[in-house]
């Protein structure tokens, strides 16, 4: 139990420092039973609660809006069991993603999810928000890999489906309701998930390309020629690389001169990070080499590099994973995470850049402008774009320029306004851009049925 004002700050504020609540109480239960008792009590007294995992969310879903009680799963961090023959892994909700993956690595397996915040995010939170991440292309979404859940409902009832095996075709698949429910239907306390064998051979290629069309073409070739070993295909625009260079202060991997920081980013407008994972190094190397020869030969790709060792491999990833943090180095960031059809994906970034310029809100040099730059990057493989608007301050004028502009653009192009970050507090008013009236009504029916007093994560999502 935490009530000290200073200690409460970390639980009241999200990591972007964009959303701050006024909670006076944080509870850190150690067992599912304790969670059950807490919720039963809160439900009876009609006290609102916010379930919180690693608090790495990007839409203000994991922090209180007013004075809701924070229920943190941080003290529930035991690995329950791992079955080496089936790959079924059972953990408490508060286990840190990286800790789970490190444990699995020793057993020759891999957690089927990987994302930039892996060092601080919790497995329970990943499931509650249906996190997508860097390897969705390879391992699919959590809707497929999660086998069972242990969830405490609003009235304290415990729903336990942790025993489930891979195949279970006996009616409604209730656990799916909680995957991506953002803490609005219950608090996930345990997760059972199917973990594949860890690839023995991993290669990274980092490529420079001359246009977004070439990025698409490169992806098509990668899909057909690298086929089963392709495990990630990420694209980044030049502005995002300059942002990363500014915060990493090292030399860009494609730079051949003695430069560091922003000056080291080459002139190519687009970059691709491509990962292959397989079981035999020689086989993978040969495939990758043939692929690279082909795309260099037909000038789809103009420059690039391949990791020669483990250190280089990690360095190359930082130029993709580091963008999120680099985006807020000037004060803050407006993050949009949208799904769009591949061919119109990057046009959203261009449209936003143009709009901000026209409204005279953005400049990389003039520090009196609220916006530094709008950059785009993301998972080409999943049609998922991250639009980051790096700002010097959060400001209503910028907000009005971006919203609902971004959502309208996405809706017009038949995309989703939230590909993987969820709706949370930021996007709750915009659910209509992605879900139909019928769908919204059904969602509300479910919410009202299982949480009639509305105590679970109020003011958000729905």
């Amino acid at each position: 139990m935490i009530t000290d004002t200073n200690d409460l700050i970390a639980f009241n504020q999200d990591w972007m420092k964009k959303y701050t609540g006024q909670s006076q109480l944080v509870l850190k239960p150690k067992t599912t039973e304790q969670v059950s008792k807490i919720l039963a009590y809160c439900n009876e007294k009609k006290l609102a609660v916010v379930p919180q995992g690693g608090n790495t969310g990007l839409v203000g879903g994991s922090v209180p809006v007013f004075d809701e009680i924070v229920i943190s799963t941080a003290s529930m961090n035991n690995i329950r069991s791992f079955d080496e023959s089936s790959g079924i892994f059972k953990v408490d909700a508060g286990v840190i993603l990286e800790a789970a993956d490190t444990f699995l690595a020793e057993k020759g397996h891999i957690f089927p999810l990987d994302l930039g915040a892996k060092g601080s995010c919790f497995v329970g939170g990943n499931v509650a928000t249906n996190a997508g991440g860097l390897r969705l292309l390879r391992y699919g979404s959590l809707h497929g890999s999660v086998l069972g859940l242990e969830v405490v409902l609003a009235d304290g009832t415990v729903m336990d489906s942790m025993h489930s095996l891979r195949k279970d075709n006996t009616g409604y698949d209730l656990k799916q309701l909680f995957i991506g429910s953002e803490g609005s239907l219950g608090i996930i306390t345990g997760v059972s998930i199917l973990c594949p064998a860890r690839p023995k051979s991993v290669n990274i290629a980092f490529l420079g390309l001359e246009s977004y069309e070439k990025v698409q073409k490169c992806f098509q070739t990668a899909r057909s020629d690298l086929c089963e070993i392709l495990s990630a295909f990420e694209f980044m625009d030049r502005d995002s690389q300059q942002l990363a260079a500014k915060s990493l202060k090292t030399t860009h991997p494609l730079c051949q001169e003695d430069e560091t920081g922003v000056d080291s980013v080459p002139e190519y407008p687009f970059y691709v990070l491509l990962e292959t994972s397989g079981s035999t190094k020689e086989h993978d190397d040969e495939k990758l080499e043939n692929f690279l020869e082909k795309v260099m030969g037909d000038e789809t790709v103009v420059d690039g590099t391949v990791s020669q060792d483990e250190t280089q491999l990690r360095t190359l990833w930082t130029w993709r994973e580091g963008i999120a943090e680099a985006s807020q180095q000037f004060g803050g960031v407006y993050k949009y995470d949208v799904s769009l059809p591949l061919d119109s994906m990057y046009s959203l970034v261009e449209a936003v850049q143009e709009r901000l310029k026209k409204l005279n809100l953005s400049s990389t040099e003039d520090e009196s402008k609220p916006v530094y730059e709008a950059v785009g990057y993301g998972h080409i493989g999943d049609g998922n774009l991250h639009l980051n608007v790096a700002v010097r301050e959060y400001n209503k004028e910028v907000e009005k320029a971006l919203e609902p502009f971004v959502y309208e653009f996405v809706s017009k192009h038949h995309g989703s306004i939230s590909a993987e970050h969820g709706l949370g507090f930021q996007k709750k008013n915009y659910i209509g851009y992605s879900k139909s009236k019928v769908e919204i009504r059904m969602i509300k029916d479910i919410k009202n049925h299982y949480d009639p007093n509305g105590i679970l994560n109020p003011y958000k999502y729905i």
Partner: protein
Amino acid sequence: MSSKIKILVPIKRVIDAALKPRINKTHTGVESKGVKYSINPFDDIAVEEACKMRKNHKDLIEAIHAVSIGPGKAKEVLRTALAKGADTSTLVDVGEEEVEPLVVSKILKSFVEREGSNLVVLGKQAIDDDSNQVGQMLAGLLGWSQATNAAKITIGKDGIVEVEREIDGGVEVVKAPLPMVISTDLRLNEPKFVTLPKMMKAKKKPLEVVKPTDLNIEISKRLETVSLEEPAPRKAGVMVNNVDELISKLKELKAL
């Protein structure tokens, strides 16, 4: 300077520096199966430095020859060296055999003589056995000057090579005319990524494979590994509540 410089860069393929090696079941060495191998980081720095010398002294550097002693798979690290800018390369194929520093030095000496090299730039040590002997032994066998643990190398107009070495409390500067052997330290440079166009071109560069017998060198062992053990794990610490308790604990352990 009148004569041109011919550089020899010896490189070793080792277990990737970022991985934690494990001792094998028979305790005779480290587990090598299913482990990722890469170029020894200090050797990577040596290759980078040789290429940097060429960039800064275009007319001075006549040739860069890379040589590796190891299994057939060590061709990979030679390809990388070629892509970075070495002109030619040789693999001395010794299979899976471990070669001791003295034999390595003798093999390298034969290459210095064959290639007519007058400068050897090599890693100060390989991160697998951490011997830190080859550079010194090679200089001894050749009767050349040596500058170990180089943190900065400057080739003067007069043909004198100046090398800065980081030592406790400062920098030591040593100077010598060629020929010489220089071993590289971590801060000499930061190796760059190899670009794809260079990697493609490297495929056409010569990579010769020879056997130790071709060089009339016998691989003999002077050392015997008795057993390899992990260091004992550190004991867990104890928390004390106050200074008095700390002092009594220390006394108990006879530290005071």
